[in-house]
């Protein structure tokens, strides 16, 4: 097959398998990604997740800023409201990415997916990429909206700088994108929504709450190495951090990469 647009209706009826390692041809990773994109938006779940994320962002940042104003907290960068809202908003991304994977298993359509893209690493990579892009765009959009809402609610108790705010908005987007990759990995490993969500709620919310609730430097140190603990350090400005933002990004990325590899291991090993 040398032509990039394959003659799907072939005129010659010789029935040799018309297939050669043609990486440049349509299909491949680009095709797999297009396929995942089509699948994602063809059902209602992602829309609902994004709507929920937007609503949570609005409510969270409004209260965050209002409380800061009422309690007369020290002036802080306005982007901190949106950065803080990620603790809840991340679950909109988690549910979106979870459902994108587990619905394939619950409906059996994963077989159709693997028949059209039998290279399993490619299926997972395409899903992770699509989820990450959506999470990045959604995360930054939420952050912009959240910052605007917070600015009004802070009513003067926050500082605004174009540079830092932009950085914070991008940081939230990056964090959400990494959470999406993490989720896709866990979902491919667990295959069921309940299992996936339990793991992620524990990792991203319950465990940090317990660690910080119990207090103490050791537990805080552990929390600093969990995804949201580390994410918080590169999203929020002005708080004390045990390491720089680049390290924080790497920690979250390492979690995402580990989950991706575990998911890939299960996906490759197990029968579909």
């Amino acid at each position, binding site marked *: 097959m040398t032509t990039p647009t394959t003659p799907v*209706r072939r005129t010659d009826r010789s029935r040799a398998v*018309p297939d050669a390692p043609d990486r440049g041809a*349509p*299909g491949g990773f680009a095709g797999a990604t297009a*396929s995942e994109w089509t699948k994602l938006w063809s059902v209602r779940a992602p829309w609902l997740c994004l709507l929920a994320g937007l609503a949570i962002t609005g409510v969270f940042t409004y209260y965050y800023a209002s409380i800061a104003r009422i309690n007369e907290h020290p002036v802080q960068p306005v982007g901190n409201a949106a950065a803080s809202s990620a603790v809840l908003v991340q679950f909109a991304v988690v549910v979106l990415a979870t459902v994108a994977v587990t619905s394939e298993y619950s409906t059996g359509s994963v*077989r159709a*997916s693997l*028949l059209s893209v*039998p290279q399993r690493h490619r299926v997972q990579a395409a899903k992770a990429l699509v989820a990450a892009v959506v999470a990045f765009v959604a995360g930054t959009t939420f952050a912009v909206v959240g910052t605007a809402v917070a600015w009004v609610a802070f009513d003067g108790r926050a500082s605004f700088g174009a540079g830092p705010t932009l950085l914070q908005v991008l940081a939230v987007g990056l964090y959400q994108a990494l959470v999406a990759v993490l989720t896709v990995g866990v979902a491919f490993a667990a295959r069921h929504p309940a299992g996936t969500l339990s793991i992620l709620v524990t990792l991203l919310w319950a465990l940090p709450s317990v660690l910080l609730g119990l207090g103490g430097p050791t537990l805080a140190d552990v929390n600093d190495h969990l995804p949201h603990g580390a994410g918080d350090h590169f999203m929020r400005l002005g708080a004390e951090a045990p390491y720089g933002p680049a390290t924080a990004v790497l920690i979250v990325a390492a979690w995402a990469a580990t989950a991706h590899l575990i998911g890939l291991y299960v996906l490759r090993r197990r*029968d579909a």
Partner: protein
Amino acid sequence: MITVRGLTKRYGDTLAVDELTFDVRAGRVTGFLGPNGAGKSTTMRMILGLDHPSRGRALIAGRPYADLRRPLCSVGAMLDARAVHPARSGRTHLVAQARANGIPVRRVDEVLEKVGLTKAARRPAGTYSLGMSGRLGVAGALLGDPPVLVLDEPVNGLDPDGVRWIRRLVRDQAAEGRTVFLSSHLMSEMQLTADHLVVIGRGRLLSDTSMTEFLAAASSASARAVVPDPEERATLVRRLMTADGVSVETSASGELTVEGRTAAEIGDLAHHCRVRLHQLSDVRVSLEQAYMDLTARSVEYTTGGSSTDTTAAGAAPNEGGRQ
């Protein structure tokens, strides 16, 4: 062409597929028969790269499925027709697969038209009847205009029209030189559709032969005769029974079923002893009978499940150990 060599699938202690070796050739319809649980679907899933073989391999045109770059243009498969996201429209389901293989979207509309789903194309697949789901599954298999088709129970849930339609479609595809591998538990349908048969039981190959040979091997000479006069009937039966290997059954209505003699032989004999016949015909063995004869020795789930080992000396000794 599909090549299966020593294909084996083991789940714990159970051998689901045991050293299967056969070829599915182009230009004919190869039927895949076996009792429930014989390993047909597992075999098909291994051919399609969905399940990993414990041993052996299955190749399509010399390559494992996972090595195909644009697999839908090489192999069209239909496994479980219901395995579609119920909220996704049939069309989008196909568009997603088309995109993954660089197939133009207009081809999706073509195959939807071909299977008669154009009207329902944009409805959620969850609202489809079983027959419509089946048609969507066939549309998916035809999407890449592949030279190889693998269809697992394609006529399941189809109405008689749909069954005829599948039969014609499958015959046409084979006539165009494609490889068609088709499983079905509907024997009469298989008899009309397939040219070649691969029969398995308990995961093992029982037969790999043409339909004609399969039927011929199973049908010993036998015939049916109606003798109106009771005395003449008794005479005929007596004369028939003098030979070895002949058995005669007489029905209440006086119809004789003769095993071991053809209609021609009975006719000659009747003429010879001046016996009047009202009816005389060879008994044709149907695929169902031939199949039953063959698998009777290896049916996994006979009554009571005590039939652990009526099959063969080499049968797996661990049957029933698990589960």
